[in-house]
């Protein structure tokens, strides 16, 4: 019912692909969902006085789940793209991202997107990193693109030597190299698609949830909570 919308929201069911550190992941000791995105959405919930329930799902399942009404919104390091905006509405951007190329520590000669031509690339299914890889492949069909359900599997492919490079979000790749692979992998070249921003998608036309998210985001940015969380995860 449209009338009760403003008063009705007491709980948000939030979808997230909880396998994308440091934005969302499982605490390896407790099994809880933790990460930048998790903290952000909880802070928004606290600020707006609504309960937040996280539902873990595959990245490719998020938008369909919104469309089906199985979740109210998603927070999953999802870049705001035109294509996606046709299926869902996005909140204000809450993170400025960009893509980066990661290669094995001893790799030489890969610096730019052009250098990726003819190489074996790994990425996560349905991400803009995968789109970038496919774009390279379209230019040079000799390029091979391997795609996985989770980015961690793409990183493993790089570690195993099954891929020459992984194209993925900067923050995630940086976190992975810092925590897991400082001796095995490195980032090369410049951040590209730097106009890439993360947003929280809601069902198309769901103005109430959208308003709630935007308001909450504004509040936590104003009161310094956002900066605290940012510092906690990225510095």
């Amino acid at each position: 019912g449209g009338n009760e919308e403003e008063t009705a929201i007491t709980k948000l069911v939030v979808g997230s692909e909880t396998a994308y550190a440091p934005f969302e992941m499982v605490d390896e000791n407790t099994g809880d969902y933790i990460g930048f995105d998790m903290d952000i959405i909880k802070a928004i919930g606290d600020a707006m006085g609504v309960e937040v329930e996280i539902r873990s799902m595959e990245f490719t399942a998020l938008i369909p789940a919104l469309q089906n009404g199985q979740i109210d919104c998603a927070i999953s390091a999802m870049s705001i793209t035109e294509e996606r905006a046709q299926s869902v509405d996005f909140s204000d951007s809450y993170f400025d991202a960009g893509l980066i190329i990661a290669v094995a520590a001893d790799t030489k000669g890969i610096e730019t997107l052009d250098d990726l031509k003819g190489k074996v690339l790994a990425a996560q299914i349905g991400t803009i990193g995968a789109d970038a890889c496919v774009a390279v492949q379209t230019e040079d069909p000799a390029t091979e693109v391997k795609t996985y359900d989770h980015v961690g599997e793409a990183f493993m492919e790089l570690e195993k030597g099954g891929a020459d490079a992984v194209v993925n979000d900067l923050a995630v790749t940086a976190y992975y190299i810092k925590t897991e692979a400082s001796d095995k992998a490195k980032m090369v070249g410049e951040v590209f698609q730097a106009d890439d921003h993360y947003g929280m998608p809601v069902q198309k036309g769901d103005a109430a949830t959208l308003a709630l998210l935007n308001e909450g985001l504004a509040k936590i940015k104003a009161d310094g909570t956002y900066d605290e969380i940012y510092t906690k995860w990225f510095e």
Partner: protein
Amino acid sequence: MNFGFTNTEWIFGTMILDKLNEIHGFQVVVNNLPNFGMGALLTLEITVFSIVIGMVLGLLAALGRMSKVKVINSIAVAYIDFFRGTPLFVQILLLYFGIIPLIFDATPVQAAIIACGLNSGAYVAEIVRAGIQAVDRGQMEAARSLGMTQGQAMINIIFPQAFKIVIPPLINEFIMLLKDTSLVSAISVPELTHTGKMLYASTYEAVWVWGAVCVFYFIMTKALSILGDWTERRLATE
């Protein structure tokens, strides 16, 4: 407090444990045992609900398959053929993302149970049909020659005997289904495999995480198959 071990055994045991404790993957697994346990519980839950649905659907489909009414027969055949002829994994994705949303709002667990139930129904149908056909033809003839109708003979003579024949393959189907529920991890049902996926994504401990998941599954399937053997033996001696 040596729990009946000798001193050397005790020292040796604690030494191994100390070594293991230094391994990251081992710690990860130990710390997450409760999570694995909860995942396993959900796996069992989905399996049990699915097999119940599967048995009901399977019985109906088996009867439909043996029916002489053309329409009923065709529906049963189409149902059985489709669900046996395509991968459960794809069925899950088709149902969860495609078909079920057109009908009603299902939670992932509900969708998982529906998909697995529909799938196992097709396999149960073939088990039931084979069971009925495995009852000696002479039984039907003896019943009919007493003057029973087809229906009376089925209910009094054929079904009770088919039941016994059907139990072992049904338990086998139960085991298959338990393993197959690993596929619903794709629609974010937090069962055992999904628990593993998430843990793997944050720890990259493939051998430990997937090894532990295997152990959990193995315990469950082994328990079921021991139960199955026991039932089979009991049925045989009866």
